[in-house]
């Protein structure tokens, strides 16, 4: 009897997984949908995937990148929502999938899409101008002592950067005035130009100005330091940046980068993409990219992914509610 079950299980595995390789395959060019503008972190990731898939022959069909950055990415979400059953479209999602429905009352719920894989986590770092305070402690003291509130630049309004700013205020008691810019790149140059005192950009967004010695990383909003120890600037690696907790500022926040298909796709189609992305994350292009952008490695699919999304979603909801950013 036990053997019979084994055989049944084996055949189930065979039938379950074999079609994923031999059965369904994209019949049209695969469209990577980017919920951000040209040149942003999602766009860069999509271009890297496009190049990695092409160079390693992971797909027979060509890959196209389609930028749907309208309305701070809401355009991409609604586009995916309206593409039920179309397995030639795959979205690079980040925390906007939780935030936009709350802040802008967007009629969207990530449960309506088909999750494929969580492929990376992005960090947030507190940066200030290289002429500014040198440690978190000095920075907070300076912010408190300043006659006008310190200006903190970030991407968009009522989003990740803005939430972090609110929690910085709550934890430190200092006042900041938050300046919403259209992109992280803009927030970076405005910090270099001295128009803002700080920003909470992702590592990739401030990488180049850090290397040029124009900004200083004060701390990273995570439980542990970034793992990459190769020197990025002349003297420092990502690993040399202390965590905010080490510096007495107990705020943690990470942002997911995950792939989704539209709703109502078949299991075979979903499995095809799980397989595609598990191959993709093995490519040298992908690994280089992760290190260069200081992304935190993670790879979750299936039930693990759904559980992660549920927890992450409720955490974001809680933060948004506490910050007072949920639209009534």
């Amino acid at each position, binding site marked *: 009897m036990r053997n019979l079950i084994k055989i049944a299980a084996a055949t189930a595995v065979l039938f379950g997984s074999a079609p994923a390789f031999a059965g369904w395959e994209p019949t049209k060019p695969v469209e990577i949908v980017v919920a951000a*503008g*040209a*040149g942003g972190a999602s*766009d*860069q990731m999509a*271009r*890297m995937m*496009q*190049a990695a898939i*092409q*160079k390693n022959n992971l797909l027979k069909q*060509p*890959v*196209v*990148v*389609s*930028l*749907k950055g*309208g*309305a*701070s990415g*809401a*355009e991409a979400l*609604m586009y995916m929502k*309206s593409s039920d059953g179309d397995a030639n479209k795959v979205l690079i999602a980040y925390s906007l999938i939780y935030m936009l429905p709350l*802040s*802008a*009352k*967007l009629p969207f719920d990530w449960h309506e899409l088909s999750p494929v894989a969580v492929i990376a986590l992005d960090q947030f770092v507190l940066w200030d101008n290289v002429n500014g305070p040198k440690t978190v402690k000095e920075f907070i003291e300076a912010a408190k002592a300043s006659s*006008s509130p310190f*200006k903190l630049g970030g991407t*968009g*309004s*009522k*989003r990740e950067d*803005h939430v972090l700013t609110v929690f910085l205020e709550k934890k430190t008691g200092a006042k900041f*005035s*938050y*300046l*919403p*810019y*259209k992109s992280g*790149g*803009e927030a*970076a*140059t*405005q910090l*270099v*130009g001295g*128009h803002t005192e700080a920003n909470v950009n992702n590592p990739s967004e401030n*990488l*180049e*100005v850090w*290397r*040029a010695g*124009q900004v200083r990383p004060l701390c990273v909003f995570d439980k542990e330091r970034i793992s990459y120890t190769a020197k990025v600037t002349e003297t420092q690696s990502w690993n040399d940046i202390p965590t905010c907790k080490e510096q007495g500022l107990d705020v943690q926040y990470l942002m997911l980068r995950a792939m989704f298909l539209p709703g109502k796709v078949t299991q075979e189609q979903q499995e095809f993409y799980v397989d595609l992305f598990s191959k993709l994350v093995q490519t040298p292009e992908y690994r*280089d990219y992760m290190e*260069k952008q200081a992304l935190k490695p993670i790879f979750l699919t299936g039930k693990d992914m759904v559980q992660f999304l549920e927890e992450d979603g409720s955490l974001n909801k809680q933060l948004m509610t506490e910050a007072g*950013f949920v*639209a009534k």
Partner: protein
Amino acid sequence: MEALGLLLHGFAVLLTWKTLALMMVGLVLGVFVGVLPGLGGPNGVAILLPLTFSMDPTSAIVMLSCIYWGALFGGAITSILFNIPGEAWSVATTFDGYPMAQQGKAAEALTAAFTSSFIGSLVAVLLITFLAPWISSFALKFGPPEFFAVYLLTFCSFVGLGREDKHKTVIAMALGLLLAGVGMDTVSGQLRMTFGSTDLLRGINFLVAVIGLFGISEILLTMEERLALRGHAASISLRTVLAVWKDLPKYWMTLLRSSVIGCWLGITPGGAIAASFMGYNLAKRFSKDPDSFGKGRIEGVFAPETAAHASGTAALLPMLALGIPGSGTAAILLGGLMVWGLNPGPLLFVEHKDFVWGLIASMYLGNVVGLVLVLSTVPIFASILRVPFAAVAPMIVVSCAIGAYAIQNAMFDVWLMLGFGVVGYVFKKIKIPLAPFTLALVLGSRAEDAFRQSMIISGGNMKVFWANGLVGTITTLAILLLFWPLIDRLVASVSKSSAPAAKAEA
């Protein structure tokens, strides 16, 4: 002179048959996508980007930048022949270019457009070559108040220097600003005026509006008046080209002024559009015969094209040095650079000298080769006007529709374009100018963001616009331009009243 040595090295990298061949291919493709309204530079570069993944970075960027140059040249063709601007900054080119084509001077207009594009780009490339570090640090001086002041200057120059009725200009601008507000508001993070529609989430795309306002409305007008394009078959030869070139020195002031405006505005985002309008308006302002503008004056082609291309080229500098793209096309190029592991930023010039100077050298070469290429094809393009309207009109409408659709792959945009076509037709009938409307539509949300960011910085105090020399000068200049007609009249009456007085004394 370090720059010169590096530049020569850049030329050495480029001068291989393979690179030159890629250059030609890029330019031809670029002109082709530039001619299709809406397809334009950004989409063309995006579509062709994957082609370059297998090339080495230098060849790839040379080819892509040549597509960019090609598209810049190509955009002028439709503006002049059909009154359909291919890119936002080609709008001002239609004001005099299209009337010229109607008068049978299409070849002259095209030659003028291409030549001034060449001059504008050349000046900007020279600037990049020798002043790159200085310009990057200047661009960093621009915070929200400075950005707003520049946009204000553009708006004010329109009201103050425009030929149209002031109240109609203001009406058109207000309508444009209203439509610019549709979609996501960056500062509050809220959706505005979308009325629950998914299609309106994106906001009103500027190019869709422009294709409709200019292209479709023109077809409607032509249909009403007579079923013929008003262009005459022009006799085109090398002589036309040389004749236009012979007249060039007469317009040196316009060319110089536009180049300076272009280079200056090019380093601020969205600058190329503002530059083309300002170049045009100022040329008109300083002309001895301002009334002849808009009726087919060749200077009216020189001025905006030089400014647009000077700034389109200068826009590549902040992209390379700061990672801030000054235009849509530059943004796609930026994505491309990153695929090859070249991160734009202050260190790009230090760490990837070969690449940067190869690119700058390719700007020189691409420009020269491009000019020869487009000039030699002028006869082909101008001969389109000889085709009967009944045959050309449907092709134009289809190409407009494809262009509008291709921008965001949305059917809704095609309907929007047709809607704007009707709006454009009505506006032309009741003489509401289209240019301020489109200007407000494209710069409106940027100006609004910059203004509200400034208000956050200052806590609601307007003094922020006079907080330092840079922003103060621009703001004051803007207000002076706004009231220019009054000032002009005042000065005139003062000098008139003082003249008789002086006589009386004598």
